[in-house]
């Protein structure tokens, strides 16, 4: 599913990430650990095709990301990867339902209200579908963000510090929902975090 070889990325002269080899099989659940500044976010962005690494080979979901260009890379990301971010970044002026519909629209997938309602329902926020993100609690917003990441049934779900702003109960729920959602559609899950509360829940770990 993911194969990384002799990867390095630098911002200017400063090295942000070095990883000699990392292999992830389809359906596995990984935790990427490390202090802040250790390159967790950079690694996630490389895997998501948001940045091109300075060195190395990256193969994700059958595509060599170094060879995908422009619009094809965007298309690939839209259909293959679901991303949950640390800060929530739901689109403020769109309702919860329209945030999910946006993901379908941008992936050029059919705009399927039933799929949206099912996904929101599975994450326990089905009743909030016509609300604006600002009317939701942090925990609810994170559930909507997860729903938006999985609505297109991606093969790979990436989460960057998904529990950072949540209390213990909400953090536990989010991890549970992420693994459950990824498991339900057989997606690979990679969570980057430095949150000690999450560590116990994953078998596969990568220390940066």
């Amino acid at each position, binding site marked *: 599913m993911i194969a990384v070889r002799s990867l390095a990325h630098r911002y200017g002269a400063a090295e942000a990430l070095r990883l000699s080899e990392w292999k992830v099989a389809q359906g596995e659940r990984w935790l990427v650990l490390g202090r802040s500044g250790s390159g967790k976010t950079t690694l996630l962005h490389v895997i998501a095709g*948001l940045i091109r690494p300075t060195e190395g080979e990256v193969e994700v979901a059958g595509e060599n990301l170094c060879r995908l260009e422009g619009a094809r890379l965007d298309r690939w990301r839209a259909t293959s990867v679901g991303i949950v971010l640390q800060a929530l970044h739901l689109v403020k002026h769109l309702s919860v339902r329209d945030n999910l519909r946006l993901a379908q629209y941008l992936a050029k997938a059919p705009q399927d209200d039933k799929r949206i309602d099912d996904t929101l329902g599975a994450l326990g926020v089905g009743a909030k579908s016509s609300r604006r993100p600002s009317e939701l609690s942090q925990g609810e917003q994170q559930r909507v963000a997860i729903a938006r990441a999985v609505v297109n049934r991606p093969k790979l779900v990436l989460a960057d510090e998904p529990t950072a702003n949540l209390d213990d109960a909400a953090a536990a729920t989010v991890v549970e929902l992420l693994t459950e959602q990824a498991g339900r559609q057989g997606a690979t899950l990679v969570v980057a975090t430095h949150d000690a509360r999450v560590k116990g829940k994953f078998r596969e770990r990568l220390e940066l």
Partner: protein
Amino acid sequence: MNLATLSASYLRARPLNTALSVILLALGVGTIVLLLLVVGQAEERMHRDARGVDLVVGAKGSPMQLMLAGIYHLDAPTGNIPLSTVALLSKNRMVKRAMPLALGDSWKGHRIVGAGKEYPDHYGAELRDGRFYQKPMEAVLGYEVAQRTGVGVGATFKGAHGIGSDPGDEHEDSYTVVGVLAKSGSVVDRLVLTSIESVWQVHEQHQGPQDDADRKALEEAREVTVVLVQYASPLAAATLPRQINSQSELQAASPAYETARLFRIVGVGIEALRGFAAVLILAAGLSVFIALYTALEERRYELAVMRTLGASPGKLFGLLIGEAFVLSLLGVILGLVLGHGLAAALGAWLESQQQYPVTGLEWRPEELWVAGTALGVGVIAALVPAWRAYRTDVSRTLARG
């Protein structure tokens, strides 16, 4: 969901910014559309009313006044000229037709024009009711006169001395309405027509002829106000006006030349208004630019998130252009409604003042051009913000957040 609904939903979330851009654009477009309608309609009407009249001959004075009084019935006449002038002009080989008009009185603000049947015929005005006048003191009402006064065939009225807003005393003789004209879209619609003899009769009674000698003297002193002349050949334009102007009592005014002069004078004001409207449209463009550009800072996460969801940079470019397009389209639509609404309001007011009519229910081809330009200005204003959105560095933006 599509680009248009996505753009619209963003604009709805910022009602004040949206309203400012839309209103500025609407004011600019509205002003230009109003000018187009009013100036265009006035020019058209003035040309229609002056069609077939090559020269207005009347008493000495201002040639523009002579034209305004003789053709458009908007100004006071310069004075009267001897009836013999008509025969003199008719006999001239350079003259195809000479139509004498006798002016001076009005009824409820509508001018009473003494003229032959050739005068309404010239404007293609046909009878809607009754018949044409045959005897003195019979009158035919123009379409608008009948509409406004509600008077029809069989009614009688007395003319008042003088024209304009403050007429003098009423004359003693009553006119009888024998006919009403159908709408012709020309100056005749606003006039009360009667025979030239009626006008003479009304005025001569002030003095009252005592005997035959007196009557003869009166008849010799008979006058008309203007003569509308149509040339027999274009060559007449070179000599006839000079010939007429060299006579001490007469003056010839060319409607083509005088209307051109009038529009040159009024044109300065029109150009100033047009420039003002252009400034408004540019200001609207600037406001679109500022609204989109300043919002970029707070939207950069939103735009980066759209990239993580698979939006291409081109999609973000299109999104901002789409927002500017929706704004401009709203402004243009509102501006067209505003321009036509103001023209209709102005038309209603002018009608109450018995001036040239203006309608808002008419489209001019130039409006398409104005709409296109305003849309273009809005979209061009969005190019720089759209380019910045296109260049969004997703990874760096997200890493900062």
